[in-house]
């Protein structure tokens, strides 16, 4: 019986090749768009997802643009539960043109890379970087984007810290995981600090943020609390949160856009559901006499319904298979275009699962009403509908 149902359901779509192929094409486009939009959303949160739960970020509680005295470092290090600490400042230089934006951080070299083991640097390059005060490190993708090689001079025009900086690329890091951001650029914090001392005397020895390594991820809240209490009522009060929360606070600024994308991706599914429901309604209406004939021959009413569901699922799953198959290459193509925006642009397993699920839900919702009609068709009226 199952074979029979499948046989009929697989052959039925060929009766209206144009209608079936248009419907399948619609599903392909919908599932593909859904997959790509979901991937944008995933990519958006990827930075936060890649965050270590063993790192906290300490910033000035007033705002991100205010810094904190360097002297905080030793006091934070002494806090119960803290293992390690480093700091960085946002540099914000311009490379030739404004449009060449990439994030640049002045970092305290040995401690910074201790806390970020996911930035993997060849040991000899790393030593070269440590030795050169004007040295810089760039992510693999960033270096690729501008065609940089180790030893190249990278001219940056300071915006926050005016001046022409001739930095020398000493090392190129690659990410330990695919989600690691390979678009960052680091220079020596000491070098920047010297420069600040010259142009803004008195503003030196400030850390933009502190990154704190903690013993145990489960203690994050308690350690954060201890750090913030420590600087309560001091000149620069702190706000400590997990690295993930810190990353998400950036994302949250644009969170409404992400939400809109997410909504659009579901709206597409609802639209294709309507298209599919129309196809199935037309198809099953044409087949009323067949459902009635099957019932007359003694087949139970559910057989008609099963035929509608099976056909709907066939169309949806064929469309989904093509759509899902195309999502990978399409995401890859888009990802290479958007490399400097998203650290990773890969289709998550969860997205693929949602694509299959969406296709099945679309098929079932589209089939629900026609299937009910096929099941309830009155034999003598259904047989008449042929004439």
């Amino acid at each position, binding site marked *: *019986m199952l074979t*029979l149902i499948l*046989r*009929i359901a697989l*052959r*039925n779509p*060929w*009766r209206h090749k144009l209608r079936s192929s248009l419907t399948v094409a619609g599903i392909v486009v919908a599932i593909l768009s859904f997959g790509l939009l979901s991937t944008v959303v995933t990519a958006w949160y990827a930075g936060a997802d890649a965050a270590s739960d063993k790192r906290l970020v300490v910033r000035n509680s007033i705002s991100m643009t205010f810094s904190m005295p360097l002297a905080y470092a030793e006091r934070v290090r002494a806090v119960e539960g803290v293992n390690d600490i480093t700091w960085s400042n946002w540099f914000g230089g311009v490379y030739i043109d404004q449009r060449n934006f990439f994030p640049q951080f002045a970092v305290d070299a040995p401690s910074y890379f201790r806390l970020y083991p996911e930035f993997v640097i060849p040991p000899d390059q790393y030593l070269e970087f440590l030795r050169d005060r004007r040295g810089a490190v760039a992510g693999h993708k960033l270096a690729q984007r501008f065609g940089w090689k180790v030893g190249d001079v990278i001219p940056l025009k300071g915006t926050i810290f005016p001046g022409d900086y001739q930095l020398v690329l000493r090392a190129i890091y690659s990410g330990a995981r695919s989600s690691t951001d390979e678009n960052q650029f680091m220079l020596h914090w000491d070098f920047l600090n010297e420069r600040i001392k010259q142009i803004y005397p008195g503003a030196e020895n400030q850390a933009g943020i502190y990154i704190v390594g903690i013993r145990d991820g489960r203690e994050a809240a308690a350690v954060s609390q201890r750090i913030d209490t420590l600087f309560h009522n001091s000149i620069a009060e702190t706000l400590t949160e997990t690295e993930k929360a810190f990353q998400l606070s950036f994302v949250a600024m644009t969170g409404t856009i992400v939400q809109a994308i997410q909504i659009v991706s579901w709206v597409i599914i609802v639209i294709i559901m309507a298209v599919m429901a129309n196809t199935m309604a037309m198809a099953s209406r044409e087949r009323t*006499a*067949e459902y009635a*004939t*099957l*019932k*007359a*021959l*003694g*087949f*139970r*009413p559910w057989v008609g319904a099963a035929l509608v569901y099976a056909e709907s699922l066939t169309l949806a799953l064929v469309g989904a298979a093509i759509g899902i198959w195309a999502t990978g290459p399409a995401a890859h193509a888009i990802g290479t275009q958007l490399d400097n925006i998203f650290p990773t642009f890969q289709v998550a397993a969860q997205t693929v699962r949602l694509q299959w699920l969406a296709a099945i839900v679309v098929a079932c919702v589209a089939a629900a009403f026609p299937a009910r009609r096929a099941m309830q068709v009155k*034999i*003598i009226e259904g*047989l008449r509908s*042929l*004439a």
Partner: protein
Amino acid sequence: MSTPLICIEHVSKSYRRGREEVPVLYDIHFDIAQGEYLALMGPSGSGKSTLLNLIAGLDQPNAGSIIIDQVDISQLGDAALADWRAANIGFIFQFYNLMPVLTALENVELPLQLTHLSRRERRERALAALALVNLSDRVKHYPAELSGGQLQRVAIARAIVSDPTVIVADEPTGDLDRKSGEEVLSLLDRLNRELGKTIVMVTHDQHAANAARAVRHLEKGELSGLVENRTWNTATNV
């Protein structure tokens, strides 16, 4: 031959059209013997199909009962009636009602899907039925690739494949040209004569009715007496 196979007892049927009650059959009462080949004649709209549908268990009467092979089918529920039809009725429709996406063989096999026969037995029986209607060379053809006469022969094969108690045929030649119609009628004749099948055929065509062993006329919902077909014994061997 004299045992009644089908007893139609004071059957009435009316349809509801909106608020109106449209009477179609009044107090129909007659028997059909085992091995009978009966033609129900009458003008269009006289209720022939309605009566045939009641006999075939596709619909239920408003009053009276229909007893076939000692089963009062007017008492059966939907599911029991479906099983009863599968076991006891072979259907032949005016417009063939084959599944367009199934081959001739698969269409003939269809009723056997409701039996416990193995795949192989199903196939063998379906092939035998197709051989009986002279379509052994068309088993892999889809309905769209067959002529009207061939389609009706496939339908006849489907009707007999499960060896039903009764074969019902509603205007089986209604959509066919003369020659194809003759082929179908001669097949029904053979089923009745050689295999002893009980056949109830509805037609408004005198020529078709002449092929049957006996005729009843239905006029305005009432039935005439049985008219034995005098030519029947001689008009054989088509």
